[in-house]
């Protein structure tokens, strides 16, 4: 058992001739908020899908919550929550029905489901829409709901794949508050984003370029290493060498 929440060593994924993720090695400590940055197509989502057992690595290895992602995929699944880039709750079920379904799948009792539903909806201010079909609620709320449902079984590690894509700045802010609240309870957070201002909120971050990790550390360390004033500048230098 490793004390690390995530420990990836030389994790690689190839699709035919294309190497989407090229031997990345990194680790995330328990309770950390770790940011996965990179341009579209840099390999963030592919890397995340290998960590949560949706995609088999071509080579390399990783443990999540101390379990090997290939050999112990089921144990990994019991310990993680995942919010995908594409909204993936059931549109044609109500808010409550979605919560009940996932509560049931993770083996919560009816009493636990009722209690957690109440807390969860209170936290995001969605009590009034409990019986509303998910397809009818606004995107910002949908995203917060998806995040909350991914946390329903109180996983040790939560994976968020571009959780703030397409939402307004106020909801984005609210989202990061939720991420902090989650981390404060000891849950590890791995979040991908391409909003660089959000990256400043992370404890540590990595910047992926063409499938490889080009920079890693605290926001301060990364900026320091490149002698840059902002993460924006670092990002531009990494992704468009010659510019800036």
């Amino acid at each position, binding site marked *: 058992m490793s004390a690390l929440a995530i420990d990836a060593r030389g994790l690689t994924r190839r699709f035919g001739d294309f190497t989407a993720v090229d031997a990345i090695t990194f680790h995330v400590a328990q309770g950390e908020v770790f940011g996965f940055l990179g341009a579209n197509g840099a390999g963030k989502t592919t890397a995340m*899908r290998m960590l*949560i*057992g*949706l*995609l*088999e690595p071509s080579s390399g290895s990783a443990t999540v919550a101390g379990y090997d992602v290939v050999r112990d*995929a*089921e144990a990994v*699944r*019991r310990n*993680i929550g*995942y919010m*995908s880039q*594409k*909204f*993936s*709750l*059931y*549109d*044609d*079920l109500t808010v409550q*029905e979605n919560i*009940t*379904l*996932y509560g*049931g*799948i*993770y*083996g919560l009792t009816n009493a636990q489901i009722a209690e957690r539903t109440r807390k969860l909806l209170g936290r995001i201010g969605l009590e009034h829409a409990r019986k509303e079909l998910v397809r009818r609620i606004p995107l910002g709320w949908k995203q917060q709901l998806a995040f909350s449902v991914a946390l329903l079984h109180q996983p040790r590690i939560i994976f968020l794949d571009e959780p703030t894509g397409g939402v307004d700045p106020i909801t984005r802010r609210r989202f990061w508050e939720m991420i902090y609240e989650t981390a404060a309870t000891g849950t590890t957070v791995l979040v991908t984003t391409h909003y660089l201002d959000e990256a400043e909120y992370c404890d540590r971050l990595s910047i992926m370029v063409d499938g490889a990790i080009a920079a890693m550390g605290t926001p301060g360390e990364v900026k320091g290493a490149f002698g840059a004033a902002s993460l924006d500048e670092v990002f531009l230098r990494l992704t468009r060498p010659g510019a800036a």
Partner: protein
Amino acid sequence: MRTILFLMRKEFLQVFRDKATVFQIFFIPVAQLLILTNAATFDIKRTALAVVDEDRSTVSAGLVQRLEGGGRFRIARYQPTTAGIESALLDREVTAVLRIPHGFEEGLVRERHAPVQLQFNAEEGAAAGIVQAAALAVLGDYARELGVTLPRGAAGAMAVGAPLELRTQGWFNPSRNYKHYMVPAILVSLTTIIGLLLTAQNIAREKELGTLDQLNVTPITKGQFITAKLLPFWILSLVIFTMGLMIGKVVFGIPTRGSVPLVFFSAGIYLVVALGIGLWISTFTRTQQQTMFVALFIMLIYLLMSGLFTPVESMPRWAQWMAEVNPVKHFVFIMRAVLVKGAGWETVAKPLAILAAGGVGVLALAVRQYSKQVQ
């Protein structure tokens, strides 16, 4: 177990909330059963017949009268020469042509026999055979009535009423009510198509929407997943089957000579196979479109080679061998045997065992092949 119940509840909620699906499950099969049963019958009623009466005699007129009187034929054309007959056959204006040659009556009186000629459009083989048999019956009756025989005529002509009396009687369906024969078969087809497509499309849809990924990161086991996807549609398919059977009984008066519980027991096993095939298809397809294509391809083969439309016995050897592993064939056999012939356990034990083995096999395959990982 509890996980499965939660997942099943979700499927039912989704099915009953979607009006198109509800329509597909409860209305379409009922409508199709009513329409298809009335349309897909081999029974002949008022078949269009052309009579070329070159003889124009009392006897020929009597024959025409008897043909028309039976209710199975309608004299669409009545003419003294063959002019325009071939195009009438080709254009399907008439199904058959009866030619009564010149000298028909005279031949009968003098030589006690005379030829008539029956021609029909053989493009529709099955229908032609039935028309032929029906016409022969009328001619035979008339020949007996006249106390004469009408032997073989010119090339392509039909021998009628030979001294040997030929009397056919359909066993188990003595009234020759083809609806009794067709309802079970059409019902099996409908239940198969709807059940299999619903199941296969359901998973494909979840793949497309991305909701399957969310389920795949949970600790649901493959067995739980397959069971939870199978059971709701199995129940719905049994409901469709029950509705169809009731319509068959009430509207078409199909017999239920054998044990009804045996029919349902067989249906339960058969549906595991049919839906299992749907599940198995959806384990390797990625979109609803692909799923639809593969499912239709497989279903077409199964339905057409089931003996539903053409008897398995008249297929080539290899096709007969293939039919042995065709679940539709076995279930249609069981349905017809139990409902129409009143067969019991002994008769259906073998096909039932084959179906059960198929069900176990296809489910094992689906569970084995279902991957929580995307490719």
